[in-house]
């Protein structure tokens, strides 16, 4: 610790000395009586005020009476002509924030000071008066404030302008009348006056887009002296750019030249502000990014930590969207791993992990290993998350990354950190089949010495589901049974369940599992014994090797298809009304009330591994499947093939927010409309969607499920089902109308009126496209998969894609069109490259594996050509892929 640095121990004999030692509120309030003396001692009064301010600063509070008393006596001090004392009086009044009737007492004194010849009086009196005043008084002093804005003295002008900025929040109509004076102040020669004037002028005009645009246009051409004002102007300019959009015809962006020019400003503050503004431009191109990245790269090797931090933090954000643009900085970034400032080091590491290519992974991991030991948990979690995404990007590298995760799992760390690692391993196991065995073993080793019950039980649950499907399940039994011997009751119970799952799935292990389960019958915990008994009976505990019943498997592995909240309510009711009849689980309503829309809140977020206790890992797909299977009308449709991401059917912030999720089945499509009512005064009832499928000829409506009621701010779902030809990727456009009955709600009581009015609400159209029939499924080794698929149903063709904005844009368009999973990080196009290969894999409806190789080339006139090679298990599927591209 750097403690010795702060103590000078040689001449510090009276170390505890403080001028405020032993200060006490009551005594100081007594002392404040000197304010009332007829002969004021200015110096003494100043000291007392300092003491009062000290008390307030230390968090002491005055009662209402005390504050009023102090306030009144302080106002007496206006008699003194001592400048220093007056300054302290101003400070004191601001700290006391007097009430409206008290303000009147000082108003005249302050107004006198506002017109004083002393600049310092004028400036401070303005700030104090504007701080404590209310609207009525403001009209009286408005004239002086307008004068002050254009005062020759910059301090006075700034004081008036800054006060204007604060007053705009409470009295906008008055401040808006000062526009002319403020405009004049923008031209001031004093740097800070210009800054304050610009800030106020922009706030006055902010709702008038045209005026803001004009302001920016004129100022970007002129000279803005203050660096702070320049920063403001950059922010306003980016706002204007955001609202105007790119001029796509010429590819030029308005005001880009100005931002780029600011990169050569002499103040670092301005350079950085401009660089940052460029990196967040929507749809920024590589050409636009380059100069900004270059200056940030220079900052990386600055001697000032603040500059390094600012640069690396910005580059870290850029790396999320444009990883290739940041690769030039990798060498500078690597030297930052050893930076004294650990925040900088962590940001550098995570940036490197985002931009790194396959070949640099091993080297990077080595550097990180040394680094991990001396940073705090919160930084470690960030690093773990970055490593997880890196591993998903380069599945071939799973071995070294998985090793790294297992190593850090063994080291010291808190719960959150350990949970992040376990979550990551679980996700890797799920997404990279090759990593499963080693991942599970790492987890097994971890629970051998895990102090967190929560993590142990989650891992055991996961192990029960995944372990039996591995090549040698028996090796996990030892780890599981060790838990039964060594752990607390919760973990023991969960280990028993896991054992039972192994027994149910693997018939050859059954006799041995039974022996272990029987031992558990003597456990000293009820739950453990109960579980053991239950499983022994359901699995047929006579020790013979028999095949497990389907029902039993369903019982062991199936998740509870009833919402837990419903279950809880039903059970509570049952207990309150005791009856002879046993509780019937079928009586619990399956309808999902106010299903929280996880996927809407966190678009694109991976479902976290152990996020949903106690049912263990679930994904959005599972959630959908459960919702759909709870609706009897749809159960006959078979297995859900794919659910699309939600498509918004309303603009943001409209009365009703609706999005649709397309569920694809073999012969059916179900549209799930997620509706949210954003009007507190309304209750919607009998909500349903009328779908016009006249532009989707192959579809015919077979059923719908309206939503009974949709209260304010509680999302609800209504469904419409269509039939379509089997296995055919039928496409079409659907137009939608939301119908409902509106009832007025008294917001104070929350009660709805009895009578409602029928109403309807037009929603936007959406389409079912070919990509909806494709599930993203990655393969860890594309070459192997490609070879083993064989060339039997290979279809190759070439396409001209016409002029495109860039190669990267063309690549991502095709990927989105096909809706397939890019493999091995090939979706990222290096900047300035003329050609690119992209590997895709997916599962087409009918469970057909499809692999695609795309080769792109771009010429000088930005014409893009593409070669498309498809391999699949069926020639029709291969042809269909070509059809999709040809018609897209």
């Amino acid at each position, binding site marked *: 610790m750097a403690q010795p640095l702060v103590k000078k121990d040689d001449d510090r004999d009276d170390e505890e000395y403080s001028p*405020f030692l032993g200060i006490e509120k009551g005594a100081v309030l007594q002392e404040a009586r000197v304010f009332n003396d007829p002969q004021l001692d200015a*110096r003494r009064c100043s000291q007392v005020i300092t003491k009062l301010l000290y008390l307030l600063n230390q968090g002491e509070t005055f009662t209402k009476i005390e504050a009023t008393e102090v306030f009144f006596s302080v106002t007496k001090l206006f008699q003194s002509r001592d400048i220093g004392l*007056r300054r302290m009086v101003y400070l004191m009044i601001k700290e006391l924030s007097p009430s409206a009737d008290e303000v009147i007492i000082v108003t005249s004194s302050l107004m006198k000071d506002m017109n004083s010849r002393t600049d310092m009086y004028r400036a401070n009196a303005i700030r104090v008066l504007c701080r404590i005043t209310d609207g009525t008084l403001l009209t009286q002093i408005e004239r002086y404030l307008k004068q002050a804005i254009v005062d020759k003295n910059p301090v006075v002008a700034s004081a008036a302008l800054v006060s204007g900025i604060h007053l705009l929040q409470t009295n906008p109509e008055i401040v808006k009348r000062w526009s002319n004076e403020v405009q004049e102040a923008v031209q001031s020669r004093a740097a800070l006056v210009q800054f304050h004037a610009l*800030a106020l002028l922009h706030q006055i005009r902010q709702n008038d887009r045209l005026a803001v645009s004009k302001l920016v246009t004129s100022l970007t051409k002129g000279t803005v002296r203050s660096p702070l004002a320049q920063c403001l102007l950059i922010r306003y300019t980016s706002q204007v750019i955001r609202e105007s959009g790119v001029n796509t015809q010429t590819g030029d962006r308005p005001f880009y030249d100005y931002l780029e020019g600011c990169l050569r400003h002499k103040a670092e503050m301005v350079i950085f502000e401009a660089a940052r503004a460029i990196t967040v431009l929507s749809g920024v191109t590589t050409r636009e990014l380059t100069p900004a990245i270059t200056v940030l790269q220079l900052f990386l090797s600055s001697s000032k930590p603040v500059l390094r931090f600012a640069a690396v933090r910005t580059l870290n954000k850029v790396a999320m969207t444009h990883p290739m643009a940041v690769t030039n900085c990798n060498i500078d970034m690597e030297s930052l791993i050893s930076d004294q400032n650990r925040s900088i080091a962590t940001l550098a590491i995570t940036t490197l992990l985002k931009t790194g290519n396959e070949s640099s992974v091993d080297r990077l991991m080595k550097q990180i290993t040394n680094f991990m030991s001396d940073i705090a948990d919160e930084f470690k979690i960030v690093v773990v998350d970055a490593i997880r995404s890196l591993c998903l990007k380069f599945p071939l590298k799973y071995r070294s990354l998985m090793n790294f995760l297992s190593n850090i799992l063994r080291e010291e760390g808190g719960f959150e950190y350990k949970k992040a690692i376990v979550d990551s391993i679980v996700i890797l196991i799920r997404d990279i089949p090759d990593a499963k065995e080693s991942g599970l073993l790492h987890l097994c080793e971890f629970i051998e010495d895990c102090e967190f019950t929560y993590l142990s039980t989650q891992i055991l649950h996961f192990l029960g589901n995944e372990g039996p499907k591995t090549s040698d399940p028996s090796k996990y039994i030892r780890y599981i049974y060790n838990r039964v011997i060594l752990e607390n009751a919760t973990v023991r119970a969960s280990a028993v369940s896991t054992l039972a799952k192994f027994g149910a799935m693997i018939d050859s292990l059954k006799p041995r599992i039974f022996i272990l389960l029987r031992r558990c019958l003597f456990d000293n915990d009820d739950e453990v014994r109960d579980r053991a008994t239950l499983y022994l009976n359901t699995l047929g505990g006579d020790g013979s090797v028999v095949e497990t019943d389907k029902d039993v498997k369903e019982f062991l592995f199936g998740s509870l298809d009833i919402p837990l909240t419903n279950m809880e309510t039903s059970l509570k009711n049952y207990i309150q009304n005791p009856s002879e009849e046993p509780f019937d689980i079928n009586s619990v309503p399956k309808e999902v009330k106010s299903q929280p829309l996880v996927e809407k809140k966190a678009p694109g977020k991976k479902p976290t591994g152990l996020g949903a206790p106690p049912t263990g890992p679930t994904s959005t797909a599972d959630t959908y499947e459960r919702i759909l299977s709870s609706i009897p009308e749809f159960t006959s449709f078979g297995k859900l093939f794919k659910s699309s991401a939600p498509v918004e059917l309303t603009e943001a912030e409209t009365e009703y927010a609706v999005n649709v999720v397309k569920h694809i089945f073999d012969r059916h499509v179900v549209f799930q409309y997620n509706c949210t009512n954003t009007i507190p005064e309304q209750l919607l009832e009998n909500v349903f969607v009328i779908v016009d499928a006249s532009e989707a000829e192959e579809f015919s409506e077979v059923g719908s499920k309206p939503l009974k009621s949709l209260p304010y701010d509680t999302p609800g779902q209504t469904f419409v089902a269509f039939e379509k030809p089997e296995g055919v990727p039928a496409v079409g456009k659907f137009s939608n109308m939301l119908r409902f009955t509106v009832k007025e709600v008294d917001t104070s009581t929350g009660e709805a009126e009895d009578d409602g009015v029928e109403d309807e609400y037009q929603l936007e159209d959406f389409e079912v496209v070919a990509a909806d029939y494709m599930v993203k499924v990655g393969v860890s080794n594309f070459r192997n998969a490609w070879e083993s698929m064989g060339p039997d149903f290979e279809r190759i063709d070439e396409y001209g894609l016409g002029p495109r904005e860039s190669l990267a844009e063309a690549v991502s368009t095709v990927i989105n069109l096909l809706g397939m999973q890019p493999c091995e990080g090939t979706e990222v196009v290096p900047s300035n490259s003329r050609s690119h290969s992209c590997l895709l894999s997916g599962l087409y409806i009918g469970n057909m594996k499809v692999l695609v190789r795309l080769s792109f080339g771009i010429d000088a006139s930005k014409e893009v050509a593409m070669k498309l090679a498809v391999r699949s298990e069926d020639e029709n599927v291969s042809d269909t892929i070509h059809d999709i591209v040809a018609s897209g």
Partner: protein
Amino acid sequence: MATFLSREVCPTIKNILLLDSEGKRVAVKYYSNDWPTNSAKLAFEKSVFTKTQKTNARTEEIAMLENNIIVYRFVQDLHFFVTGGDDENELILATVLHGFFDAVTLILRNNVEQREALENLDLILLCLDEIVDGGMILETDGSIIAGKAATNSNMDDGASLSEQVNVKWLYAFFPFLGRTVCFGRRE
């Protein structure tokens, strides 16, 4: 809502803290409502202090805490902090810290330590008042800030008068004095 958003566009300072070597307050000023109660403020100060304690911030350092950016600098037993929002320009915050630090150095006539600071608490409070007003940056030049605070010190006091003249004289002729002083200290 719109006005609120626009305030976001403007560089905003959330607080300025001057703590001693044990993390206790010497002088603090909060401009945002992120910490509504005194206990919330104290908790924030404590976590800032513990988080930065291990560093040797003889020049400006920087850290992130609870979605805030904190720039800081330590001299002897005084710890200077300036806090801004998550997406604030780090260099603007550093400029404010610089101004505050220079002003205090000038006011304490180079004796930047806790006892001296407490004895001149009135001037330090005036400094804080001159740097930021309700979150808006008022002035960032340390010598001007110190000049404004010191001009107002007791006029009838002989010592203060000469000191005031000194400061005025100094910043009139050596506008970068504040910086030179700090560099001299570091050696």
